[in-house]
């Protein structure tokens, strides 16, 4: 056992966690921003914009990965532009991991935030306005805290999804050990080699991390929900 753990390459854990955290942070702010804008749209525009923003969640991840690859490939305009002007490479880099994870996980954040915003009593916003509060203050000090539980659960789901992303990541970032090799990709790889011990180990790690996060956040949001009846 000790030998197994000592000989193990721990890099997938670090890469997955880093990717998950960064993608969640980006999705968090983009999701809140998008949700805030979409809530204000009229019904027709809402249907269109909401459809576009939700698309990555419903598409097969390989399709999303393919589209990302089309855009950012170093042989295509956007990819060439980023590479030559800013020295930024997306394909086969950690940046690709983040981009893939963000695109796939973002809709979860956006949809949860939107649902939470739509539950808010509009009078709270009106009250803030008549009290002279700036719109940004109303958003960050009233709307976001009031929508707290919904946003928190959106954030957990986003993190879990971003950390576990496989399809789009493998296409855009590839599986380069120590660089873009996430846990999900490592599991797929070692199973192909018939190494069920290593695969099983990583499966247990993923199960533990995911459960721990959900458990902790349930505790935190649960405290605010203590008045909710159990039935």
């Amino acid at each position, binding site marked *: 056992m000790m030998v197994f753990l000592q000989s193990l390459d721990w890099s997938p854990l670090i890469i997955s966690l880093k990717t998950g955290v960064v993608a969640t942070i980006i999705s968090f702010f983009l999701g809140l921003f998008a949700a805030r804008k979409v809530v204000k749209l009229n019904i027709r525009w809402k249907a269109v914009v909401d459809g576009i923003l939700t698309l990555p969640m419903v598409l097969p991840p390989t399709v999303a990965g393919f589209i990302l690859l089309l855009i950012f490939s170093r042989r295509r305009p956007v990819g060439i532009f980023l590479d030559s002007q800013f020295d930024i490479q997306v394909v086969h880099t950690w940046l690709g991991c983040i981009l893939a994870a963000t695109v796939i996980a973002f809709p979860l954040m956006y949809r949860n935030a939107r649902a939470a915003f739509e539950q808010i009593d509009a009078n*709270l916003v*009106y009250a803030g*306005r*008549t009290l*002279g509060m700036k719109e940004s203050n109303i958003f960050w000090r*009233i709307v976001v805290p009031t929508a707290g539980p919904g946003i928190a659960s959106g954030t957990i789901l986003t993190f879990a999804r971003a950390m576990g992303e496989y399809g789009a990541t493998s296409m855009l970032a590839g599986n380069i050990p120590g660089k873009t090799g996430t846990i999900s990709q490592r599991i797929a790889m070692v199973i192909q080699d018939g190494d069920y011990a290593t695969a099983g180990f990583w499966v247990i790690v993923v199960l533990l991390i995911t459960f721990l996060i959900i458990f902790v956040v349930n505790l935190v949001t649960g405290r605010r929900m203590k008045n909710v009846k159990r039935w």
Partner: protein
Amino acid sequence: MGIAVDIRKKLGDFNLDIRFSSDAKRIGILGPSGCGKSMTLKCIAGIEQPDEGSISISTLNEDGSSGRKLYDSDGRVNLKPQKRNVGYMFQNYALFPTMNVVQNIAAGLKISGEEKDARVKEMIERFHLQGLEKHLPGELSGGQQQRVALARIMAYKPDIIMLDEPFSALDQHLKERLQHEMIAMLEDYHGQVIMVSHSRDEIYRFSEELLVMENGSLLARGETQQIFEDPRTRKVASMTGCKNFSKAERIDNHTLRLTDWGIVLQLKRQVPEGVNCIGYRAHFFEPVWGQRKENCISFRLSGMDDLPFERRYYLKPEECGRQDADLICWFVQDNERKELDAKPQPDYLKLREEAVMLLHE
């Protein structure tokens, strides 16, 4: 001086079209739900935008009075709610649920930390919120929430205050006491206060000047007491709580035939042309035994409700030719009820001249 509103707004089938100006300190807007009274307040506060018209207020401050345009479709003025300095109390108080009492009161204040603390402390004391500083709105009673909402508005020093059905979210037994409290708490506020309600008791207690609304337009306006005493139209009388109406035909300057009640009414005062209806409040009938007197209605008892401190009789006018005439409501207070119980059923109900309201439909 005061507020001037002249706005129109179309919302589907509903048309708001209202025009008034007033310098009364306490203005009441009475009307059934959906009549546009809350919409009017929201337009003044800038939460909703009218299609056209203008809204302006003027306030009395240390330098004398100054007028401000809040909205004007011609001059293209449309101040944001943030710039209007209009205090708005929502039906459900709209306290920020994740902020405690102190944070709620301080939420809109744009003054330095020390001043802010002092202002909040002043409000806590003035609205008797000591000991509740750290409580969240969800932990407060309805009455306490209302005081926090009022404190939050007052801390902001608005030029004018809107109260949107302030008592409708409260239990019946709290309402009475809190209405009284609210009037007392508003006493040292020198600006105008506009209160919207569908309850005539609330409005009567609170307002000096009264606007009566229905279906988006103004039915009547004037001094509150004046409107309750002489509502002029049947609709307004009914909204001020008058229960009994009879169609009337004017015979001469002092006589009316009440066709729904089947009697001829003799009045000492002049009956103006155009009167075609009378109203009579349920508490003002006078029971008569034996000999019929002037202005007496003959009736048959149709039903009776005993309330804790009141009895309500529902009576069918006997001399009315029609079968579908409305029942007459006669409400009797507790002390009178005891006297009535000791006697047989009265033979007639007499209309007292001073309680007859001359109306047109």
